[in-house]
């Protein structure tokens, strides 16, 4: 005799990866069958269904509390049948917040935040769990190999070890963040990824590293609550979402003909992303209660991120938070005492660029195009003016840190991460202005163009 199936064993089913089906019946005996976007685990005897619209299912439940849900396991293909009885609706509290968060993350991605909102988390008692006999699942590992994902836990452990080795070998923040994203690609097959860190401005994240996109996106900003990265930062919880639920939002968008799509603000670097991400996973990098960053992964494959991946990446998240924080502390302590290598040959001057610094919003435009703002802009402006007035092309992190004009925060100034994103933004946007590392804590500002500086 096999042990009874528990709700806990169905963890993969509660992620909204594939839509479920909800069967209800009116008090006058007319059955109803409908798609259902979210079934969430509440406790060992209860699940919650998302209530977003006043539809027939909801009206039926008000009349007759009996319901049936058919729920697919996205990892194995096995269908599960849950016999339910409506208990109550929650409109606040942790359960509601968790469900609302996932729905908002998806809505916010589509620019529909607040429209496709959760009205309530409807809690149901689970009276029976049975296998759906026509939807027979396969062995999980076999399926995942077919889907191109590696499921073997031994392999996952090896992958984590390899990634840990890469992280341990990194000697700069630059090498560390690139190593993390490369490792996720090479060891786990997560090809599209980004790391964002809190910006100077509270409630804003800024991108410092990406992998798998045409543009590096360095300096791209995301507000807390915006898109998956912003939602993860706000909630400090991992979020895994699938494209099928997003499909519902597209349908909604068509219905509403939502007045979205206004022109992107001029002073904004677009966040790189897949045009049609079918699944996304965001993990907060938290250290001793402080948000150090957010790691985001996305894929064009609909059920790419499995429950085990989320658990591995979540575990990795705490490790990455420690590694990033330590690296910044270690770079900060460097005295830049190593002798500077001989200066590079002057690069040929190819053209002329007008660089304008707008003091009002601390932003820099190059030949009329937005480059960067905030602390990275202040740093670049300082470097350019120093270079022009003193003729000096080499600088140290230490002198920037001591430079009062930069107005760096005394504690946790994040200078290294800002230099990193500035360097990458320059590579992307104006390759004839370069920040080139020369030794730990020392770098050069190389120009292969003539610059005209103007402060407005």
């Amino acid at each position, binding site marked *: 005799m096999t042990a009874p199936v528990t709700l806990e064993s169905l963890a993969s089913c509660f992620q909204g990866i*594939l*839509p479920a*089906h909800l*069967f*209800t*019946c009116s*008090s006058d*005996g*007319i*059955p*109803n*069958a*409908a*798609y259902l*976007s979210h079934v969430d685990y509440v406790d060992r005897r209860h699940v919650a269904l998302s209530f977003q*619209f006043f*539809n*027939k299912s909801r009206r039926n439940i008000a009349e*007759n509390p*009996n*319901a*049936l849900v*058919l729920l697919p396991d*996205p990892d*194995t*293909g096995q*269908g599960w*049948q849950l*016999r339910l009885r409506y208990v109550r609706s929650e409109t606040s509290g942790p359960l509601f917040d968790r469900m609302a968060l996932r729905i908002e993350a998806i809505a916010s991605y589509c620019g529909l935040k607040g429209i496709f909102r959760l009205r309530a988390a409807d809690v149901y008692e689970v009276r029976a769990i049975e296998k*759906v*006999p*026509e*939807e*027979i*699942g*396969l062995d999980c590992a*076999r*399926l995942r190999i*077919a*889907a191109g994902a590696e499921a073997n836990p031994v392999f996952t452990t090896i992958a984590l070890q390899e990634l840990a080795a890469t992280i341990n070998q990194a000697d700069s923040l630059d090498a560390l963040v690139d190593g993390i994203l490369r490792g996720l690609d090479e060891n786990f097959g997560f090809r599209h990824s980004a790391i964002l860190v809190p910006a100077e401005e509270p409630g804003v994240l800024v991108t410092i590293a990406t992998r798998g996109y045409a543009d590096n996106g360095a300096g791209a900003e995301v507000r807390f609550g915006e898109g998956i990265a912003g939602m993860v930062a706000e909630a400090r919880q991992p979020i895994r979402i699938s*494209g*099928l639920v997003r*499909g*519902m939002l*597209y*349908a*909604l968008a*068509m*219905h*509403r003909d939502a007045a979205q799509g206004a022109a992107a603000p001029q002073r904004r670097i677009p966040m790189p992303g897949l045009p049609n991400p*079918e*699944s996304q996973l965001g993990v907060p990098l938290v250290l001793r209660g402080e948000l150090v960053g957010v790691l985001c992964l996305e894929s*064009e*494959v*609909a*059920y*790419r991120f499995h429950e085990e991946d989320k658990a591995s990446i979540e575990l990795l998240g705490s490790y990455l938070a420690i590694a990033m924080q330590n690296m910044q502390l270690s770079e900060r302590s460097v005295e830049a005492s190593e002798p500077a290598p001989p200066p590079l040959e002057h690069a040929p001057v190819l053209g002329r660029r007008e660089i304008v610094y707008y003091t009002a919003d601390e932003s820099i435009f190059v030949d009329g195009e937005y480059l960067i703002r905030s602390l990275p802009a202040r740093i670049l402006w300082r470097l350019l003016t120093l270079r022009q007035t003193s003729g000096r092309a080499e600088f140290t992190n230490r002198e920037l840190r001591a430079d009062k004009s930069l107005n760096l925060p005394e504690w946790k100034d994040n200078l290294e991460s800002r230099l990193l994103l500035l360097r990458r933004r320059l590579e992307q946007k104006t390759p004839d202005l370069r920040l080139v590392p020369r030794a730990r804590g020392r770098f050069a500002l190389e120009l292969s163009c003539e610059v005209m500086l103007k402060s407005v």
Partner: protein
Amino acid sequence: MIQPQLAEFLQQGVGIYIGTRNALLEPNGARAIAARIEEDGARLIVYLADVAAERVLPDLHANGQAAVTFGRPVDERAVQVKGTFVAARAARDDEKPLLEAQWEGFTRQLEMIGVSREARSAWATWPATAIALKPTAIFEQTPGPSAGQQLA
């Protein structure tokens, strides 16, 4: 009555579920494999694997009430047909190609959204039961605020 344009959608190979209920008004539900529209839209035949049909046939024989949803995975377009039970019989061998073609269409759609064929390879599709229903009402069910709007 199911209009020809809608019939085309219902028979193209989409995700199909049938819902019923017992005397205690407890719902039952099962996955269907394929559908066929007959008698100029006055008959809806739904094909279920026998193991699935077993769960809904007692209700259909007892009270005749059914709801069938059709959902296209690639764009989430969905329609619900309410109907009353007419008859049930074993699916014939000459109907097997129709079931296979629609199931293949559905599987291909799932592949387009990234769900592997492998995940569906063990699902039961044959032997099957053909359940005839008389359509009584049709509702739009594409997710969103207009879901629930009566189409016919």
